[in-house]
């Protein structure tokens, strides 16, 4: 079949509203449901550009454009409703990052795909509030940034400073945040304000390979590198006073801490192991996909079940990891302000996961169905009164934490009823790359990037400065546009905007 032109490809895309487009069946072979993407005009042009380049080079070489990936996911066995792309979507391994796909658990053919979760399983964001204000922090900003840097191990190959034995790791993999609470690294109240209460109950450490555990053991309680960070942020704007006040955020200028991190080498290894075993399962069960990267296995198969049990362990690991860093951040603040973290009101506002697959109940064509919802680069955003969100947020909807990129702003959103019906209760996760990592390395100079942060009054501590330009704001989409699109589309609601005062990175 001859490659289609860009104009021909565009014929498959139809506009519903200014923020919502459909990718109709036929865009790629075997689509079982349509695709849908949420973008505004500015973000749309980025997707078009990608698709145009792909067409111009005759559908060969380079990476698949995100829209094609979205449609390929719509061709996976067992998918229901639609394959959804959020405004921060960009190409990833198999699935685009910023893609939601729900598989029908009652369909024996339905699959689970590690590509739909991502390599950094349960990568996520947590926000800790304080009762400090910008005026109190400004004078000690550098000292505070240094204290965080001195407490939290960061960077490629960094090792944790919380003593952990192999037995501890096994327990942590099984118990998740319950382990942190038991050992005293976490406050009891933290657990309430964490997605899944910080523990996936189907975790089975015996399904995690020795290699994965070996990678995970020394890294527990480390931030890692890449786009992960710990930031001291200040509340810049409050859009929804009532909801923000439920979260303990009640004034502009209030200081918060955001931690963005995941399951480190352990999660990566779990994903790699699963991809290998699933390739075999695919040929055995005769599962066909449009893209080799979309390796998957039937949910009910041994490979599928093993992956879900191991993924749950990696998710638990990531929560323990974020809890340990919360413990360290609380210590750093306590040291600088000479008050205990209780006095500083350092409560967890919420903790979200944006790389995970979970079994949830949703209404599909008026019928309640059990679905395996893959969220890759997408955050769960449940509406008010959903039974799975904490009692404190029953009237506001689930808080959704959107981490910006180094030096730009971050947001707190809340889940909406419309999001529940349209996107399986999901919204965006961050800015999303506009520029690939290698492209960024070629075009940006790290000294320039660091200098521009300093000129904005942001303290920065980086373990590997040369990797900074990969994460520079210029490499990413504008997070405000991403968030505004989700707000306008109604799939989540803006609540608070934060800007950074200090950044600690790998």
């Amino acid at each position: 079949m001859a490659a289609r032109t860009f104009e021909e490809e565009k014929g498959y895309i139809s506009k519903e509203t200014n923020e919502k487009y459909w990718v109709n069946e036929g865009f790629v072979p075997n689509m079982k449901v349509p695709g849908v993407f949420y973008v505004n005009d500015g973000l749309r042009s980025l997707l078009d550009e990608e698709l145009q380049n792909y067409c111009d080079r005759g559908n060969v070489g380079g990476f698949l454009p995100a829209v094609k990936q979205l449609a390929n996911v719509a061709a996976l066995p067992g998918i229901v409703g639609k394959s959804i792309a959020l405004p921060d979507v960009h190409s990833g391994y198999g699935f685009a990052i910023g893609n939601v796909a729900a598989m029908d658990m009652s369909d024996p053919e339905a699959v689970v795909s590690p590509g739909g979760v991502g390599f950094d399983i349960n990568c996520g964001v947590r926000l800790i509030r304080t009762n400090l204000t910008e005026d109190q922090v400004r004078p000690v900003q550098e000292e505070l940034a240094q204290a965080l840097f001195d407490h939290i191990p960061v960077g490629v190959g960094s090792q944790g400073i919380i003593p952990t034995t192999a037995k501890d790791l096994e327990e942590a993999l099984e118990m998740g945040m319950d382990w942190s609470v038991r050992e005293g690294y976490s406050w009891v109240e933290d657990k309430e304000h964490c997605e899944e209460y910080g523990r996936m109950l189907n975790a089975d450490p015996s399904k995690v390979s020795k290699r994965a555990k070996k990678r995970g053991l020394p890294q527990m309680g480390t931030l890692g590198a890449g786009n992960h960070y710990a930031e001291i942020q200040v509340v810049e704007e409050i859009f929804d006073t009532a909801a923000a006040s439920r979260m303990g955020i009640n004034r502009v200028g209030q200081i918060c801490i955001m931690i963005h991190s995941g399951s480190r080498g352990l999660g990566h290894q779990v994903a790699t192991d699963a991809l290998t075993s699933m390739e075999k399962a695919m040929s055995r069960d005769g599962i066909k996909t449009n893209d080799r990267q979309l390796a998957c296995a039937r949910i009910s198969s041994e490979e599928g079940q093993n992956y879900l049990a191991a993924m749950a362990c990696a998710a638990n690991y990531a929560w323990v990891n974020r809890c340990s860093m919360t413990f360290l951040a609380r210590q750093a603040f306590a040291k600088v302000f000479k008050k205990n973290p209780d006095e500083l009101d350092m409560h967890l506002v919420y903790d979200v996961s944006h790389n995970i697959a979970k079994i949830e109940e949703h209404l599909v064509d008026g019928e309640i169905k059990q679905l395996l919802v893959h969220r890759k680069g997408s955050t769960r955003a449940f509406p008010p009164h959903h039974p799975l969100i904490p009692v404190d947020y029953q009237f506001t909807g689930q808080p959704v934490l959107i981490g910006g990129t180094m030096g730009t702003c971050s947001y707190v959103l809340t889940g909406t009823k419309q999001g529940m019906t349209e996107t399986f209760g999901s919204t965006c996760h961050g800015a999303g790359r506009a520029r690939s990592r290698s492209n960024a390395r070629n075009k940006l100079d790290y000294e320039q990037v660091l200098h521009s942060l300093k000129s904005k009054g942001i303290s920065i501590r980086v373990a590997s400065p040369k990797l900074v330009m990969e994460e520079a704001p210029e490499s990413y989409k504008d997070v405000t546009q991403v968030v505004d699109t989700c707000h306008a589309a109604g799939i989540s609601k803006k609540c608070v905007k934060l800007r950074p005062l200090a950044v600690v990175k790998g």
Partner: protein
Amino acid sequence: MAASFGLVLRALGYPGSPPGQGSVGQGSEEFRKLVSWLEDTKIRLHKVEDRGALRDHASEAWPQTFEAYATALECPFDASDGRTLGWILNYALGLEYRDNAGELNGARAKLVGDERASTRPERSFGDAEGARCAELANEMASALGVPTGQDAAKILEAVERAAKPLAQARMEAGATSEVDLAALPLGFTTGDAQVDSASLVMRSLFIKDLRELQSVIDETTVGVQEYTANPKTDAKLGRVGR
């Protein structure tokens, strides 16, 4: 006990001296006088001609008379119980109120009306000159950093001036404990506004219960942490700071 008797006796308009703290017992003259006065003027359980025994304060048989009287009133306590007099007093007070409810309620409505109409609501304290009030005013004043040592009313005015902006700031920050129930999302609609309001109230109460349950669970877990938690760090294990 004696103090609360005093208030009830004042309300009932008792002319005699109240049974003092030491003599609260049916043996005392004051006690017997009070009981017969209550029967004569408020309770009127027996006909006038049948009240002689109760009025015979000096009689040795008075305790038996009193016992029979308490039983006749269906008092839940034994005549010898220290709580019996209190019960009889309250019973009398209830009768007094029933007789004069219209008048008393009218007086209250007038008082409240006056309070509302008053241009100086800060003086609505019944006894702003009282010692206890002055003490509380001083306490508030020192908490707010307002100079003390003047008369209570002036201090209170200053306290009000100092507290208003603080309260205002809290209100603006949305930190009030009172929430506008109607502004909360119900999550569904029944099509009937009244049923919706009732559902919202029930939902709020349910969430309040849930919060209390969660707090109990948290407290219990914190108790367990006392035995299990021992967090530690060892900076030598990894490399931090550079």
